[in-house]
Every structure is written in C-alpha cells, then in structure tokens.
C-alpha cells in the first residue's frame, strides 16, 4: 500500500497550482475559487480526519448519533438552500434525509450486513446523507416548478372533485424520478464508465478487488434505497405545502410560490 503523509499531500497541491496557472493563462476567472476551495478542503478534511480518529477510538454510541445528527443538519441546510420559496424547506429536507438514512442504516443493521461501529456507521451515513441531500433538493425543486408551472391543470383537476394527491400525481412521478435519476444512472454505468468511490478507495488502500466490489454493491443498494425513501418523503411533505386541508391550491398570494 502507498504510504501517504503530509509531504505527499503538499506535493499534490502542485496540481492545484498547475490548475490555477492554466486558468490564469486561459483567463478563466476561477483562480480565487480554486485557491480558497483547495485550502478550505484541506482544513475541513484534516479536521474531519482528527474528529473521526477521536470518534473511532472512543467508540461511543451517542457520539456516533451526534455525528450523524450534525451531518443530517448540515445536509438539510445545504439541500433547503437550493429550494426556492417553499415553506418549511429546511424541516422537509431534514426529515427526508433522516428518513432515508434511518431506513437504510436500520436495514443494514437488522440484516447484520454491518455492525453499529463508528468505522462503518459514519462513512456510510456520510455517503447516504450526501446522496439523499441531492435527491431531496432535486425532487423538491422539480415538484415546486411543476406545481407552479401547471397550476391551471391542477386546479382543473381539483375543480372536478379530485384530491390534491390525484391532481398532483403525474407531476409527483416525474419529480421522484428526477430525484432518483443519478442513482439509476449509476446502476447503469457502474463498473463500465466509472469505478465508484468506495471501491476505488478500498483498492487504493490495498484491499482485494473482489472484496472492494462486494462492498460497492452493498453501497449501491443502500444508496438506491436511501434516495428512494428521501425522494418520496420530500415529495409527500413538499406537495402538502401547496395545498390547504380543503384541497385548495395555495399560490403566491399566500406566500408559498
């Protein structure tokens, strides 16, 4: 296995310098973002490295839960910031991501695929929350734009006596698919177009390729379930923000869209 230390990491930053140099030469205005981003990434990742080392050594259940809670809160904040003008978007993102994570990690534990140890739970939660965060934001944005864009069609269905759920059904299907699209594409191309992160990481760290592949399959199944649960919960909660209990579409005058 390759031994990495700070020397190798600093040397790797020569590649950042190369990228900045090239962007200067081509007058692409991203040098500041590159410089700040790479420094920020260094600081954040080193901090996370130390935090994980501490958590792994302590092996405390409440600390694992706390780490997951913080990751979910940050993920929900990031997801809700991408969703425009929807009431309770942070709560929706938080509940959706938490549901996706709880269901999948719970299932992995129940099926005894993993044990509740920081070494497994935290990296897996990180992957789940990262993917669920994107699924939640994509699903919420799509359903909001569809409801706003198709308000007359939805009202025509409501006026015929349809429930808000029936009136929104065609749009909900589209939005859910949008949220799950990255995972569906992942399953189509995995191993052919790209070698996914978990597997690559294990191989680079010296693991046997077959073991790395088996883990990647488990991760793929886990992420598919997570984004599906997250997308559905996001949909359920977001669509409700557009309707009153009397199946009336709430429009911009009521502060929703």
């Amino acid at each position: 296995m390759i031994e990495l230390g700070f020397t190798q990491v600093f040397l790797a930053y020569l590649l950042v310098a190369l990228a900045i140099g090239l962007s200067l030469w081509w007058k692409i205005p991203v040098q500041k973002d590159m410089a700040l981003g790479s420094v920020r990434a260094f600081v954040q990742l080193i901090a996370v490295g130390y935090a994980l080392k501490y958590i792994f050594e302590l092996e405390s259940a409440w600390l694992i839960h706390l780490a997951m809670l913080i990751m979910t809160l940050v993920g929900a904040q990031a997801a809700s910031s991408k969703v425009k003008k929807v009431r309770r978007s942070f709560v929706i993102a938080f509940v959706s991501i938490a549901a996706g994570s709880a269901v999948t990690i719970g299932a992995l534990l129940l099926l005894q695929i993993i044990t509740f140890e920081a070494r497994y739970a935290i990296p897996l939660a990180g992957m789940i929350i990262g993917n669920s965060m994107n699924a939640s934001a994509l699903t919420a944005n799509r359903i909001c734009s569809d409801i706003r864009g198709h308000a007359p069609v939805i009202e025509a269905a409501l006026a015929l006596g349809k429930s808000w759920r029936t009136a929104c059904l065609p749009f909900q299907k589209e939005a859910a698919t949008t949220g799950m699209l990255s995972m569906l594409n992942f399953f189509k191309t995995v191993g052919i177009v790209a070698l996914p992160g978990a597997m690559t990481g294990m191989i680079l760290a010296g693991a046997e390729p077959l073991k790395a592949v088996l883990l990647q399959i488990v991760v793929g199944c886990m992420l598919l379930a997570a984004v599906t649960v997250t997308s559905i919960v996001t949909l359920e909660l977001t669509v409700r923000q557009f309707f009153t209990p009397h199946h009336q579409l709430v429009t911009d005058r009521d502060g929703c869209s």
Partner: protein
Amino acid sequence: MNDNNIILSVSHLTRKVTVEGSTKAIVNEISFEFKRGGIYTILGPSGAGKSSFLRLINRLDEPTSGEIVFDGKDYREYAPTVLRQQVGYLFQTPIMFPGTVKDNILYAQGRLDEARVDQLLAAASVKPGMKDQRDDKLSGGEKQRVALARLLATEPSVVLLDEPTSALDPTYTEMIEKVIRKIVAEQGLTAIMVSHSPDQAVRMNGVGLLLVEGRLVESGPTKELVENPRTDLGRRYRDKELT
C-alpha cells in the same frame, strides 16, 4: 333557505386578500339565491370579483366570512371533493388532461360505460367521431365542449362557467351558448356564467347579476339589467363608464 326550489344561496359572502400589505375585499358581502334550473349571468367591469365569486362557490378559494348553502346544507358539511363534483367549474381557458377525448371524460368519472361517454359527448355537441382524438389535436372550441362534457360526467346540479367563450370566435361562442341552454333545459341544471359581454347575457336570457368592486349592485332579468338598470352604477356600466 328551506325553499326546495333554491339550489344554492350565498349570504354576506366575503373574501379578503392581502396584497403588498394592503387588505382588500375582492368579494364583498354578496347575498343571493340561485334557483334550480336557472341561467344566471354575472356581469361587471374587470376586477369586479366575478371569477373570485365563482371560485368561492366551487371552494377553490375559502371565504373570509359569510355563508354558502348548497342543496340545503352548509358548504362546510360537504367534503370539498364531493362539493366540487356537485358544483362543476368550467374555466375561461379550456384545459385538457393529456390523452384522448374519452380519456378526459373518464378522468372525471372512471366508472362510465361507452354509452354514457357517448351520451355526455352528445350533450356537449362533441361529434362522436372525436372520441379517440388526442387533446393536442383539438381546436379551442372543441376543447371547451369536451371540458363541458367532462364536467357533466360527475352529474353536477350547478355548473359554474367562467367566461367560457372569451377565448373563442363568434361561431364557437354561439355553439357553446346553445349547448349551455340545452343542458340547462334537458338536465335541469343551474348555470352560473361569468361574462364580459352584456349582449351575451341578453342572449342567455336568464337572471343577471351586476358586480362592481366585489359588491352585488343590482340583479334582475338580464335584458332589463342590461338595458334599463335601476342603479347609478348599473347605468354607468351600461354606458361603458366603468372599465
């Protein structure tokens, strides 16, 4: 209120909305009784609250205060989904759901046999051959008649028609007016239509209501309301002084 001939009554019906910090009554203290089998045309200048009034009756919007009694019962006693099947709504712009004409009828009421679909299409003067036409192949006038047939599928007692001909040419306008008069006569429905045209109100030959700034200012036989209004606002509307 207990008069069995009254299908719908509204009392002090009001809806207030707040726009940019200022609250305005877009429907203001309207009281009226609609009889079974009647044709009612709501007239008034732009922004008079005509469509807003219809939306309250279908409960697409919630009144701020006032009462709506439908078929002897307070509107809140009905589930909104049930009330809306009884009080159908035809929008100004015909809206079709993706699919064929028949799909659109079945969307409103799934458990209909072929004969009933044909009957509904005939009631709205939709040619039988159009049953399998897709929504995007229909003209505006055809779409509006299909939307009318679709609305009849839920067997409403009242149909609310929100300027149903404003987007149509004179030929289709005449056709839709004829269809409305026909379904009222044949099926005993009550039609409440919003119109921007006093001439159309006269042609529909029923009871007219004049709304100005959310208030009901005058009502009566349409011809009289249009030609010899009793109120100052009615005369100003006739003389096109209100826009």
